[in-house]
């Protein structure tokens, strides 16, 4: 019904899709899985007509179609319900107005549609059954809808527009268990009636009993396809890919006393408590799929978010940072997941980016000494092997890997002893990845906590690996006793529990 043929999508130098062939058949539920950056969202956008592919084509019923604008996809009966449903609604308008938005935009309701007319049209779209069952008022502002309500309305709107292919992006991310079950039933029902449903989720266990077929993407390619019955653990292996190079022989490091201890921390209020201990001279790796709670925990440790629950100690004394400055004062440096948003000052030069977290050593007579800042930065550029035109080059002129090195350099310049790194190797080339890995294992850093959803990255740097799933610690490994099958099983444990 809907197919992608050798679709290639490039953004500048990055290739998001490297030739994808995908067939969506009428009446099936097709699951789509892949790690962050595997190309899921891009493929979605191409199929939903939000992006025109660089190469290749999209066919509907065997006929090549030109998408690239949402209206074209709408005409061909393809509809996307985004993960963040609020982005598909105009919050200031009423529910009724949102439901008839497409019709309004196309003038199908006449030049001066009255309120009565809009309500009638909206009622026909949503259906009285849904409005009553979900307790939705047509006059309410769309911004007041709950996620599940908005989702149901968007699905109804899409079906009313004659959608034959429904794309659901992470539809259960914000739903309760009951709502999730209802959605699954609805999806099965739609498929039985002949609608094709493309279903994306990182809760792999959801596919059991729901999907007829699951396609796995990795690095912009389709790497595997599974027919029902679906086994989540096999999906994980397909998403992560084979672990190619096992860590080389590394000197076994004698871990010292506990530096940082987490007791009863929770990633969310409804998540299970987590205890972790980070020892001197050790790199502790945390791995888990998207949504496992890694980022939420790390941000609490560094004072970026308030503690949900539990206590921490640092060097044996109580540690309760209320602001990142508190954590920094105790010697903790944080490399955030979203470097561009949370770490970079792109229009600043390397010097100012590097010295930002600790300016006091550069004070001379109450003012900042340009010479002192520059020489400190130049030394770090040399020791970290940062490739740049010089200390005064703008951060935006550097490659991703070198920018990440600058972020790490910021903490060395601030004298941080303990580094907390969230997905430090994302968008970082292999060379820089090796350098950063070597640095956090060096004596320049007392101890480090590294989180990554890619177990291979963790294996490269960690002395000890903790597996997180659904906010809970579900297993612990040493790099030399890794068992891929066991790891895959652990990674999906909690999602299976959710549904049980």
């Amino acid at each position, binding site marked *: 019904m809907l197919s992608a043929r050798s679709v290639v999508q490039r953004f500048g130098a990055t290739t998001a899709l490297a030739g994808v062939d995908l067939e969506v058949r009428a009446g099936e539920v097709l699951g789509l899985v892949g790690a962050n950056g595997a190309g899921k969202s891009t493929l979605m956008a191409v199929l939903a007509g939000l992006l025109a592919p660089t190469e290749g084509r999209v066919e509907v019923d065997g006929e090549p179609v030109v998408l690239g604008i949402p209206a074209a996809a709408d005409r061909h009966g393809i509809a996307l319900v985004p993960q963040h449903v609020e982005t598909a609604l105009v919050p200031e308008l009423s529910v009724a107005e949102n439901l008839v938005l497409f019709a309004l935009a196309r003038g199908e309701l006449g030049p001066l549609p009255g309120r009565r007319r809009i309500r009638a049209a909206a009622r026909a779209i949503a259906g009285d059954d849904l409005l009553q069952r979900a307790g939705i008022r047509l006059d309410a502002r769309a911004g007041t809808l709950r996620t599940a309500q908005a989702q149901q309305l968007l699905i109804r709107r899409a079906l009313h527009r004659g959608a034959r292919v429904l794309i659901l992006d992470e539809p259960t991310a914000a739903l309760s268990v009951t709502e999730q079950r209802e959605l699954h039933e609805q999806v099965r029902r739609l498929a039985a009636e002949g609608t094709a449903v493309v279903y994306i989720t990182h809760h792999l266990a959801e596919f059991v009993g729901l999907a007829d077929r699951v396609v796995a993407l990795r690095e912009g390619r389709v790497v595997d396809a599974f027919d029902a019955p679906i086994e989540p653990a096999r999906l994980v292996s397909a998403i992560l890919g084979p672990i190619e190079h096992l860590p080389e022989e590394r000197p076994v490091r004698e871990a010292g006393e506990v530096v940082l201890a987490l007791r009863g921390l929770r990633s969310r209020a409804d998540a299970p408590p987590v205890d972790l201990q980070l020892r001197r001279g050790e790199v502790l790796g945390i791995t888990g799929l998207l949504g496992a709670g890694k980022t939420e925990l790390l941000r609490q440790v560094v004072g970026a978010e308030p503690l949900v629950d539990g206590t921490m100690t640092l060097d044996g004394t109580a540690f309760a940072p209320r602001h990142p400055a508190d954590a920094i004062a105790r010697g903790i440096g944080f490399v955030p997941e979203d470097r561009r*948003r949370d770490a970079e000052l792109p229009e600043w030069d390397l010097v100012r980016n590097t010295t930002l977290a600790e300016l006091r050593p550069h004070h001379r007579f109450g003012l900042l000494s340009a010479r002192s800042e520059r020489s400190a930065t130049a030394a770090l550029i040399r020791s970290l092997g940062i490739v740049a*035109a010089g200390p005064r080059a703008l951060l935006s002129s550097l490659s991703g890997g070198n920018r990440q090195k600058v972020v790490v350099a910021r903490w060395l310049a601030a004298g941080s002893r303990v580094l907390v790194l969230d997905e430090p190797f994302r968008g970082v080339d292999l060379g820089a990845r090796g350098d950063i890995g070597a640095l956090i294992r060096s004596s320049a850093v007392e101890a480090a906590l590294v989180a990554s959803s890619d177990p291979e990255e963790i294996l490269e740097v960690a002395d000890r690996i903790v597996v997180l799933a659904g906010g809970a610690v579900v297993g612990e490994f040493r790099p030399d006793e890794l068992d891929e099958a066991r790891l895959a099983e652990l990674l999906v444990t909690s999602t299976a529990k959710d549904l049980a």
Partner: protein
Amino acid sequence: MTISLADRIRDGVYRSGLLVLLAALIVTFAVSLPAFGTPRNAVIILQSVAITAIIALGVTISLTVGGFDLSVGSTVSFVVMLTTASQVYFEAPPVVAVLLGLVAGAGIGLINGLLVVVARVPDLLATLGTMFVFAGLALVITAGQSVSSGATFDGQPAPGRITEGFAWLGRGDVLGLPVPVVVMVVLGVVVTVMLSRSRLGRLLAAVGGNADAARLAGVRVGRLKVTAYVLSGTLASVGGVLLAARLGRGDVGVGGAYLLETVAAALIGFAVLGANRPNGFGTLVGAVFVGVLLNGLTMLDVPYYTQDLIKGAILVGALVMSFSALFKRKDAS
């Protein structure tokens, strides 16, 4: 890699364009108008822009943290009425009146800062609101009347007057230079050095550059924003005190005109030396640039009612230089 001549010219225009233009303007006027190129006229020009420049330095600080202080004009109005009324109605000594004005300016800045940081009202809206409130309060404290020595108060002649000591702040000289010009130079240097060379200035700029990144690097973003607005309000009140002293009376609504003038000076300052961001030196140059042009054109008998048009055109030109892709520096490397 060799840089083409066209690129060099473009980069040159970008970096020094406004300064070169200012120099060319001064030379042209000096050659064609004998009265222009005199030290006396230079002082007149500086005096004409001094108060604007001082207030604009405050606006520059609010722009540095990524904010925008629209309330500076109203702050000037309020401080003018407060300092004059306190002297004329309540016989406050000049020192008390000045301190009262400065504290009021800082207080307005504090309110702005708290609205932005604690109440999370967007900068433009918060300061738009306080702009109205303090323009209104300036009228309320004198029941809508202008204040001058000998004015009536509660039906009686007011007991106090504007003293000469106070008027000296606006009309007096220090080493042959008018007091407001001296204050402008001193505050110009202090603010420029603070923004470019001090830890506080660096942190303020970090907040404006990327507040999320700054926070995770340990910068107390909220406190710095409040600090920026307090400094902005205080500098506006310095302008208000000097204006009251120069006028020798409290005229209703006299500060309103300063909002656009000072914002223009600060924004023109973006283009100076290719900074492309708020900077103290640029703001001074921006204010002087407008002053020189208006002074020269007035001598050339260009009618006064064209002044706003000319200022607007300069502002648009400078903004194009700062933001247009035509002048974007390729890269630092």
